[in-house]
């Protein structure tokens, strides 16, 4: 056999960015791993350099072992996933034996200069369950050092591990010969002033980690195409296998994927005032129709978010398209994200672009501004959805509604309802409305009723809250808030309080009450116009001061003056000041501001014209308002619209009845 050794050195111009050095490197990983495509395992070594950045001296070290979420049916993750109807039969009793996933630690040594050197601490290894004490959950483990590590001191861990990817796993796993490694390696928790922040893996939770440098060499069969966090340094081919080394500094996670089926497109994002970014798209041939949407979305996001918030600081961004019916989902990782488009998505809703913009948005909110997604997911999700909607509006304007016919499995016939436009923000409202009163937004991600409620709050209510904030404060103030927040907290771990403080710094008045209701209550915004009455003014009748009877005069045909009464109502329990606009029949308008405190408010007018209509919140500032239909009331009804749609409905039914005669 001819042994062929080939060394390919790909020379990159090293792009050193000022910001990269600004990141505080706490956990840096060097890994050397190999994918066994038959066993679906990744085995290898890890050298982790970690620094105690907290004020505490600690002896115990906490690690995540996320893949153990797929180890048995009683893991916290699968218990929570099983409670969701959509995941009901997933990982059920008939799940294949080799379908489970796990992370096994084969060796674990710790080194601290002048204290201990390559000491095995594996005997101290213990699974712990800080969130729910579920004994079957093995997604967090702790080990003990020979001696405590003091603030500011550094440690090196040398770990041998085997990661088994789950079949059709959620966020990580394999489908046919596509492998996606997310949350796949032993990952150290975050040590904070109050101890370890190292949560178990929950169905709804995403992640939290410290920044550092990653240097990962991955070996796969030669015909496999790899996409990974960071930049490809070099590739070595030997024995039908290829080893590729990826390096990225100042990130807090590393994900990669490999498949022989990927097709690759590379493109360079260029924009005046923004650094160039190489976009590398890996897509599956069956999803070719989504490629333009992915690329358009990614470029639009890099441009708009780079301009609005902060420039994307890394030289490369990898986009990975995954099968539309897989559970890998659309997911963000530093300098890499996945896009999953339903095979039955409606073209007019532009799912490929929307998803790419959303996940690319996470490069900023989560990737750079790295909040704790376990505890305060809204801080990235809401900011991302808000940003995505703004970006979609800037690039595409309104979306086109549509529907699918004959939906069956992965097949459907899409149909565009060309007359029905919809604003992207409606989609946020539609997802939020059904769950508006079930949960509060700022809560641990596993404390929600279900996944839909979690998303309704963290993603959609959050985004609507930010739009409301923007409308109250004005676009300019809001953009200053967002860019300041981005720039201040890039490579940091901001909290909800940091965001509110940033808002209050720029807002003309403190917004604490606004946030209190939005973040910590289930209150909904719903202002409505309750009634309008306009009566022609009549003179005094009855008994006068002296007790003399005054007879009523007949109503005039063309009255000169009207007495009008308008009642507006707070139908929700969220209190927020609101504008009220009263339109009179003679074209005049009157504008009022209601503090919104009471349950209702009455306005009375006496003038030459009757009230024509009343609009509460005419500029639509309150994006959180769950029912905008009741915001406008006319004094007089006009049934034309109802007639138009009722006759159309009648026609539809007549046609249906005529078709029913088919069976006679």
């Amino acid at each position, binding site marked *: 056999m001819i042994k062929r050794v080939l060394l390919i050195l790909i020379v990159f111009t090293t792009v050193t960015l000022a910001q990269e050095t600004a990141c505080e490197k706490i956990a840096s990983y060097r890994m050397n791993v190999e994918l066994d495509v038959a066993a679906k395992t990744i085995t290898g070594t890890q050298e982790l350099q970690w620094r105690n950045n907290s004020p505490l001296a600690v002896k115990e070290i906490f690690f995540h072992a996320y893949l153990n979420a797929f180890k048995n049916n009683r893991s916290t993750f699968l218990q929570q996933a099983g409670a969701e109807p959509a995941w009901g039969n997933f990982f059920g009793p008939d799940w294949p034996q080799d379908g489970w996933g796990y992370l096994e630690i084969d060796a674990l040594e710790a080194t601290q200069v002048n204290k201990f050197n390559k000491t095995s601490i594996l005997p101290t290894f213990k699974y712990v369950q800080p969130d729910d004490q579920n004994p079957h959950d093995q997604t967090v483990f702790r080990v003990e050092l020979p001696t405590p590590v003091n603030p500011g001191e550094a440690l090196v861990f040398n770990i041998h591990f085997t990661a088994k990817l789950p079949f059709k796993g959620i966020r990580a796993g394999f*489908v046919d010969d596509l492998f996606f490694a997310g949350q796949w390696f032993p990952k150290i928790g975050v040590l904070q002033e109050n101890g370890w922040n190292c949560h178990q893996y929950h169905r709804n939770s995403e992640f939290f980690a410290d920044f550092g440098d990653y240097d990962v060499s991955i070996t796969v069969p030669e015909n496999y195409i790899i996409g990974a966090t960071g930049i490809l340094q070099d590739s070595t081919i030997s024995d039908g296998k290829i080893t590729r080394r990826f390096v990225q500094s100042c990130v807090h996670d590393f994900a990669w994927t490999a498949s022989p089926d990927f097709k690759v497109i590379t493109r360079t994002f260029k924009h005046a005032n923004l650094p160039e970014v190489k976009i590398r798209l890996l897509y599956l041939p*069956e*999803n070719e129709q989504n490629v333009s949407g992915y690329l358009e979305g990614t470029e639009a996001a890099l441009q708009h978010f780079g301009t609005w918030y902060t420039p994307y600081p890394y030289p490369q961004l990898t986009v990975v398209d995954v*099968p539309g*019916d*897989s559970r890998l989902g659309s997911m963000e990782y530093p300098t890499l994200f996945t896009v999953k488009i339903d095979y039955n998505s409606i073209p007019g809703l532009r799912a490929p672009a929307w998803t790419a913009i959303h996940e690319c948005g996470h490069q900023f909110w989560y990737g750079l501004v790295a909040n704790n997604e376990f505890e305060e997911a809204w801080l990235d999700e809401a900011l991302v959805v808000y940003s995505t909607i703004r970006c979609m509006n800037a690039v595409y304007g309104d979306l086109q*509604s549509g529907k699918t*016919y*004959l939906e*069956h499995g*992965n*097949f459907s016939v899409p*149909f565009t*309802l060309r*007359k*029905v*436009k*919809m*604003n992207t923000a*409606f989609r946020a409202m*539609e997802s939020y*409305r*059904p769950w508006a009163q079930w949960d509060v937004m700022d809560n641990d991600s596993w404390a929600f009723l279900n996944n839909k409620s979690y998303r309704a709050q963290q993603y959609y209510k959050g985004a609507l809250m930010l739009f409301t904030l923007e409308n109250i404060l004005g676009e300019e103030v809001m953009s200053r808030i967002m860019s300041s927040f981005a720039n201040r907290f890039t490579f940091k771990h901001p909290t909800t309080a940091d965001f509110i403080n940033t808002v209050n710094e720029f807002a003309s008045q403190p917004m604490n009450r606004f946030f209190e209701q939005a973040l910590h209550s289930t209150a909904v915004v719903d202002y409505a116009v309750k009634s309008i009455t306009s009566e022609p003014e009549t003179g005094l009748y009855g008994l006068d001061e002296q007790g003399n009877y005054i007879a009523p005069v007949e109503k005039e045909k063309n009255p000169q003056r009207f007495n009008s009464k308008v009642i507006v109502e707070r139908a929700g329990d969220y209190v927020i000041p609101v504008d009220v606009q009263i339109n009179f029949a003679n074209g005049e308008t009157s504008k009022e501001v209601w503090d919104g405190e009471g349950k209702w408010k009455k306005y009375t007018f006496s003038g030459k014209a009757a009230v024509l209509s009343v*609009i509460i919140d005419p500029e639509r500032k309150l994006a959180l308002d*769950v029912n*905008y*239909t*009741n915001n*406008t*009331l*006319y*004094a007089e*009804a*006009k*049934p*034309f*619209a*109802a*007639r*138009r*749609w*009722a*006759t*159309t*409905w*009648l*026609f*539809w*039914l*007549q*046609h*249906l*009845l*005529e*078709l*029913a*005669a*088919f*069976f*006679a």
Partner: protein
Amino acid sequence: MNIFKAISNGITLVITNYKMALIVYLVNILLAILIAIPVYSTLKDNLSDRGVRDVMEQNFDYEWWSSFNFKAEGLEKTIRPALSSGFALLFDNFELFLTGKFTGFGTVIFFWGLAMVFISAFFNGGVIGLYADEKRTFSVSRFFSLSGFYFHHFFALALTMLLVVFVFYKTLHPLILNLADQSAGGTAGNAWPVYILAYLLLIFIIFFIKIVFDYAKIILVLENKNSSWLCIWLAVKFVVRHLFKTFGLYLLLSVIGLCLVLCFGFLLDVVNASSLFILLTVILLQQLFIFIKIGLRFSFYASQLELYRQRSVEVVTGKIRRKVK
């Protein structure tokens, strides 16, 4: 005799007796109006004094609908964006036949449809009875008396057809779609041809059932049979023996129907009923469409009846010729 002649004879029969279609049309609209009234009053309550009426006069407002639909119940659920499209509201109905999800629009609509099946079974007796009779022409009393005369048989046939159709949607229908799933292969997103083929096969089977029951009715009337079950058997034999002719005729008329749907779908799609005058025009168009569709349905019966009559004459004359020899 070819199928074109049968169709042209059939359509002539329908046109000369257009008053039957008119009666059935009146029944159709009356039945529909009964439940359209509450829908209208819901729409009136929700739209007529709200600001959204300005949008809904011009177009379908998705945002209004989304908050309306959130609280909608029963019939209200059938008010939907698809009403904004001339095509979509028709396709929504055709889709029921391909998916078998007849309760998709709720129980009220389902039972209204079911009622229509039996009402149509009643009138079919009159319709086919009159077409079968070459001498006498239409009169309202004759139409109704013929309907009554055949009703017990036609009711039994409708019931049997519903049963057959039910079995089809519970067995063959999922089987064929599962086969399509398997040949499309687990994760592949592009399996269009397979599913198109599967749906065509489903249409073929539905049409076959329908054609058999159509000829069963025709045989029952023409041959004066007294057992509807026997007629089904005779119809199966007839359809299988003349598969190309019977299917050819049915498909040809279906193509005419499809053209009709596409024409009116297009017309209703481009016209925006944003003023009273245009709305009245649109209503006229809609009602004309329903009337023509009823006429077309009758053309199926009339043409098939013509085809059957000619075929059996040929068979009979063939037999006589053989005897003479």
